[in-house]
């Protein structure tokens, strides 16, 4: 087996359709590591980075045994849970966060905003998982108050992950698309 774009596409496809949580494929020096949970390295990249302080992870105020129901304070335990995890990237807790890829060039959002995979509703997406993309080509749009920021791939390669759902909120620096230049 060789790590061709086709192989990667097939592997990712199989992973997508499976209920596997994690997949590691090693071929020669190539290594493909996919996980529905953030990978350690990815997790660090996704979490807020403090130059000299720990990331701002929080005490989850509503452990299992809690009866909840704390109306005063504006934040219900449910909301507290929802924001627990340090106010990191919204996508880190979203459904797409799992499909993090350890290899390839991670393209980050240039701004806070909304993530769009296509130039307009109903139009075909800029890129598909496993598809080829050329350097300079748009892979997504991050919309900042109606301003459409086209995000270009810095490399030629294969799209090995799309980390955010269409229409979801992203923040600055959040990885949105991964392109493997080896593909």
């Amino acid at each position, binding site marked *: 087996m060789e790590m061709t774009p086709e192989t990667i596409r097939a592997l990712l496809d199989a992973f997508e359709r499976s209920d596997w949580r994690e997949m590691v494929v090693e071929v020669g020096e190539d290594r493909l590591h996919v996980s529905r949970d953030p990978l350690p390295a990815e997790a660090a990249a996704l979490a807020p980075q403090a130059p000299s*302080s*720990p990331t*701002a*992870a*929080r*005490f*989850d*105020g*509503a*452990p*299992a*045994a*809690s*009866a*909840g*129901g*704390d*109306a*005063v*304070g504006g*934040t219900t*335990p449910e909301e*507290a849970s929802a924001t627990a995890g340090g106010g990191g990237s919204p996508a880190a807790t979203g459904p797409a966060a799992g499909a993090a890829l350890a290899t390839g060039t991670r393209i980050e959002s240039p701004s806070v905003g909304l993530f769009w995979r296509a130039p307009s509703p109903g139009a075909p997406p800029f890129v598909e998982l496993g598809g080829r993309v050329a350097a300079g080509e748009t892979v997504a749009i991050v919309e900042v108050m109606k301003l459409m920021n086209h995000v270009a791939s810095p490399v030629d390669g294969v799209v090995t992950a799309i980390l955010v759902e269409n229409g979801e909120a992203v923040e600055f620096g959040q990885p949105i698309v991964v392109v493997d230049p080896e593909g």
Partner: protein
Amino acid sequence: MALRRLLIANRGEIAVRIVKACFDEGIESVLAVSEPDRGSLGAQLADKVVCIGPAAAAESYLDLDRVLAAAKTTGCDALHPGYGFLSERPELAAACEEEGVIFVGPSAAAMRRSGDKATARALARELGVPINEGSEVIASEADARRVAAAIGYPVLLKAAAGGGGRGMRMVESEAELAAAWAQAHGEAEAAFGDGRLFLERYVRHARHVEVQVLGDAAGNVVHVGNRDCTLQRRYQKLVEEAPAHGLSAALERELGEAAVRLIAALDYTGAATCEFLVDPERESAGFLEINARLQVEHPVSEVVTGVDVVREMLRIAGGEGLSVGQEEIAGSGHAIEVRINAESPPREFAPTPGLVTQWAPPQGSDVRVDTACFPGWTVPPYYDSLLAKLICSGPDREAALARTRQALRHLRVQGVETTAGFAFDLLAHPDVVAGRVHTRWVEETFLPEWSDAREAAAEAA
């Protein structure tokens, strides 16, 4: 004459609290530290630091001679013992008197009279204060057996030398006495350097209510309201409130007056706490003992009354009169203190010393945080696990409880496991919200429920 330079013979949050009171009063603070506490927050904030010994408390915070030498060699004219360690040792008060160092607390004689449980009980009887039955100091396990049979099981074994739950054991029956005696004796020896024990009748479903008292050298004695400290685990207080909720005005008045009469009869200067066991159904209270020192939970009284207990202690020690009269002290609102310990509740509350990588307690107008913790501090494994006291207040108990839960949700701490999540769940329990608890409720009702719920959640995940 006002104090000039004070040796603080303690550590942790109470050392910081006393440094703060010194700052307020314009007194120079000198902190006696053990080797691992050289970089503590108290050491950073104090005007001067003197290292008195190695990590082991017996060779530092519990070594009377070294503590006194620290005061003498640094030119201190006074010494504050804080709570725990040597704070209830009349020998320290006596040695200070001998050496011309003002002890911030009662005279050795007053401490002996108030600290000796038998004397205090006799005094209460004399003054017509109802008491909870108990013994004098017991010499041996055999004696304990005899006294317990006379009082009737269950009984409580208690350390004569100090409080804070150290050296305390409930004994349900004679079969348990031997083991409990050995444990309590050993614990008391380790905590206070004094293993003497006595016995007390154990009242089921009782609440622990205490009254904060202050007395000055002129003989003025006031009480600064009462506190409820019923939520305990193994006689360690977890949560304290002021005022004690749901007491009738008559009982509140009765307790306050009894406490003032007791302290007034003792020729007592400084802060004292009179403890009572309250039977909420019968609206009756039995006197337990006097704590002749500042207590961990003093902040709740400060918050509801506006009286600064520690500053009053310093002023009284300096020979000044109390700054307030009884008629000026009025409680307003409700305050709750939660102890945040570096402990792992799921692992039987095992201490979790280590490096605190993140420490960001919540900031709010109704939130006071008494702590010695800071980001980068290493909680040493040698002393107690109290990391911080979160004191939240509100116009009434319901608001204070809600504020406390909100504050607990907003406490950001990493590096060491804490009891914050446990405390949140505790304060969300309907029995706590309704105030339907007793001193054994945490162990008998809450902890079993809580462990079950945790396990169920773990399985479901």
